[in-house]
């Protein structure tokens, strides 16, 4: 009996004192985007984007309002700023649904390690948001550009990169953990995707932007940024980003391969459009004569989607010929990109160092501390092995049947 008494008293204590972490859904604002700029008076200028959920309700009360709203503060640490945001907005913020972290060029050049630590340490942030370097405009402009389908700007960017990553491979698909493990590894340097604004950012803030079929202002993907440690040192274009991604996790992409090997002006050249699927990419570092040779090996399947060439696609020889052309084309592209990174930036963003470590652990230990220099001087071999499997639902192209004068 005494036990029951004790238990019930204890139970009362618990029930009466519980609920420290309780927040009603009505009392929170969902943060979807964070934009970090250099502050004018202090270290950072942080802009958050929160969802205005009432705009997503079926029975809206109070008419049209913006689907998301932003708020900006300046301060010295991101963490403090995030807690201080209620200086201007009403509800508590939750960050678990943050979709995009925008970092302005200026900040990135000075080094971002200081606030990356906060994101890594905090239990609130997840690993599923994109890290984006913003080119041109300030980062805070990016969270204000609306879009008619995905009304919340960061959700739009998130979806956009996801689709782009899957369809064409122009987004390196970098998440927080990838970024950090690249930072901590000596055999790899971090990269991150970049964004630009097309059009007038001021117009993009208004919801009239959404009324048009062709929106005035649009956030676009613009390749990727290369870091040396945590400092931004340069950019790659969208096409080069794809080439970079070829060596990483690219699954599907599509490209235009010239029909003939001789160099012509682009307008004279005939192309075939090729879709690549099922690729498997492997990095290897061979160690010959005391020098590392970087090897990229890519296997995959391709499919012809369209052709301007006149070759007869019902013949085996044509397939073989095309296959070779595709392989050569891709190899050249990738080779060029790696060369460019080697010469212009001299940092290993591909993870050759990690691959080297896995394959030749002892040799790697010797060069570990100056790996980037070794990388910059190493030879590159690209071995592409894409199989042309089929060519759509037609064999010969009808172009070859058209009577010509």
């Amino acid at each position, binding site marked *: 009996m005494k036990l029951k008494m004790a238990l019930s008293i204890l139970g009362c204590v618990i029930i009466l004192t*519980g*609920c420290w972490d*309780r927040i*009603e859904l009505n009392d929170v604002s969902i943060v979807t985007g964070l934009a970090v700029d250099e502050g004018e008076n202090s270290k950072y200028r942080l802009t958050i984007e929160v969802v205005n959920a009432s705009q997503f309700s079926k029975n809206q009360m109070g008419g049209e309002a913006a689907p998301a709203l932003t708020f900006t503060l300046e301060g010295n640490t991101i963490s403090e700023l995030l807690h201080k945001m209620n200086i201007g907005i009403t509800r508590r913020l939750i960050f678990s*649904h943050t*979709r995009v972290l925008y970092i302005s060029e200026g900040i990135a050049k000075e080094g971002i390690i200081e606030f990356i630590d906060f994101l890594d340490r905090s239990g609130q942030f997840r690993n599923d948001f994109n890290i984006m370097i913003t080119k041109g405009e300030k980062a805070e402009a990016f969270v204000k550009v609306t879009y008619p389908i995905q009304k919340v700007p960061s959700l739009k960017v998130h979806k956009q990169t996801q689709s782009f990553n899957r369809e064409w491979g122009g987004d390196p698909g970098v998440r927080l953990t990838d970024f950090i493990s690249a930072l901590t590894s000596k055999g790899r340097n971090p990269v991150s995707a970049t964004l630009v604004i097309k059009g007038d950012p001021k117009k993009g803030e208004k919801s009239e932007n959404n009324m048009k079929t062709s929106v005035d202002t649009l956030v676009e993907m613009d390749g990727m940024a290369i870091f040396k440690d945590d400092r931004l040192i340069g950019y790659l274009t969208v096409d080069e980003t794809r080439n970079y991604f070829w060596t990483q996790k690219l699954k599907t992409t599509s490209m235009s391969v010239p029909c003939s090997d001789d160099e012509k002006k682009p307008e004279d050249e005939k192309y075939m459009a090729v879709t690549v699927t099922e690729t498997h990419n492997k990095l290897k570092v061979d160690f010959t004569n005391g020098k590392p040779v970087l090897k990229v090996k890519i296997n995959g399947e391709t499919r012809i989607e369209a052709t301007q060439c006149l070759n007869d696609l019902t013949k085996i020889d044509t397939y073989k010929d095309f296959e070779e052309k595709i392989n050569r084309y891709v190899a050249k592209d990738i080779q060029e990109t790696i060369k460019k990174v080697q010469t212009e930036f001299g940092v290993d963003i591909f993870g050759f160092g990690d691959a080297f470590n896995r394959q030749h652990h002892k040799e790697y230990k010797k060069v570990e501390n100056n790996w980037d220099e070794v990388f910059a001087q190493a030879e590159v071999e690209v071995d592409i092995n894409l199989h042309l499997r089929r060519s759509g639902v037609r064999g010969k192209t009808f172009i070859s049947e058209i009577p010509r004068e």
Partner: protein
Amino acid sequence: MSIFSSLFTRKKNKNKGKPTEEELFKQQDIPKQYYSQVEKNKKLLEELFKGTFDFKCEPIKIGGHKAYLTYLSTMTDKNELSNRVIQVATNHPTGISFNNMIEMRELYFPSVDFKVAENFHRVVWAVLNGEALIMVDGFNEALSLGIGLPEQRAISEPSTQTIIRGPKDGFVEGLPVNILLVRKRLKNPRLKFEIYQMGRDSKTNVALGYINDIANEDLLKEVRERLNKIDVGALLDSGNVEEFIVDKTITPFPLVYNTERPDSICGHLLEGKMAIFVDGSPFVLTVPTLFVDFFQASEDYYQPFIMSSFVRLVRYSSFMIALLFPSLYVAISTFHHELMPTQLLISVQAQREGVPFPAVIEIIIMELSFEVLREAGVRMPRVVGQTVSIVGALVIGQAAVEAGLVSNVLVIVVAFTAIASFVSPIYSFSIATRLLRFVVIFSAAFMGLYGVLLFLIIMVIHLVSLRSFGIPYLAPVAPFQPRNQDDVFVRVPIWLNKNRPSYLYPKSPVRSEENNQPSPPDQPVGGQK
């Protein structure tokens, strides 16, 4: 494991087919010999039917011969019996002699349907069939008269456990009729019914039914003991008995199973359980009761086994839904916003926009009003019941949402929970779920998912500590008994279910040794080459 291996390896059937009458009785250890000394037969019969109250063996005189009239009182029509047999036999002048049973029948009971039972097996059979048996001294055969079943009030479909396929009769308020319904299905001389009188004022007849060669002796002793201990003013329903015989009263879970369905009682008896019939109550209890019993409907055994296995899994999951769904909603929407995908979170938040209550209060208001509605629907006259449900649906469902008092999602949660809580085949079990639901909602409101987990763990600890007549309530899951898994979460085909559940320690653990798996004929039908 053997269950599965025999499912897939197709052993050729060496099936002997169903046992002959001879084998059957031999199995049950019943002698065949019918003696011409009637006393001997009477003794044998009394031995066989010992302990069952409705067995009657009354001495009569037929034409001066010493004779016994034997019948099961629950299975035979009293009026018919007295009019057409007893009165005829006693009123007839003595001294008219007959040489065999057929002659006797012609003399005394010319208009009654009859059979001659020439051996003891037939005699037993006749009694079990509800015939009146006349054994006359000096003859080595007996006469069985088909009197017919007693008149009964129209047996209707059970109102609490309706099914689609399967027998549609249900128990009624009269004890003899209920026993008849069981006896009709189980023609086994070892099926015993013991009678008890309980209640100082009511003197209610309570019958304890069991199959002697299946039910465990110790369990039986325990049940008898508990029944004998009952000292009460009046017993008005089997529910009163239930409260006296459970192992533990302070628990939301029912420790005694009750049903209105004779077929499900038969199933339980055959597993080795005992049934308790209370006069005046259409609900019959079975003990010992396990947690899994409440997820088995008798229809499971009449539908294809794949289907009923699926339905059973649905039942288990809807138990969890009925128990946890509202609390999960509370926990996630007030503690763990990160658990919802972004889009879902935004639309849930959009709906909660402008709702004046915290989620807990909101859900408790809704759950309570639902309970009120349900209670009103049950108590009201049938005719008004419909009005209540319409008003309820309109007021609570639509108007509350439109007025912005509760959110749409919440109505979905409450409605789905309510429906899920109706899935349990036994009403008394769904009461437990209803009650615990409130506890877990509070727990979730204070501690989020951690609270839900704490609740679940405490609930399971409580469940495993429960016993029904000494049998662990969660058997055969905890303690885990791999041999008894064939009728728990899924049901295997009946021909595979060869063993009785061993947690009940049945006297004869095996249902049938034979491999009864059906198979197509070896030869092609129609004699193709």
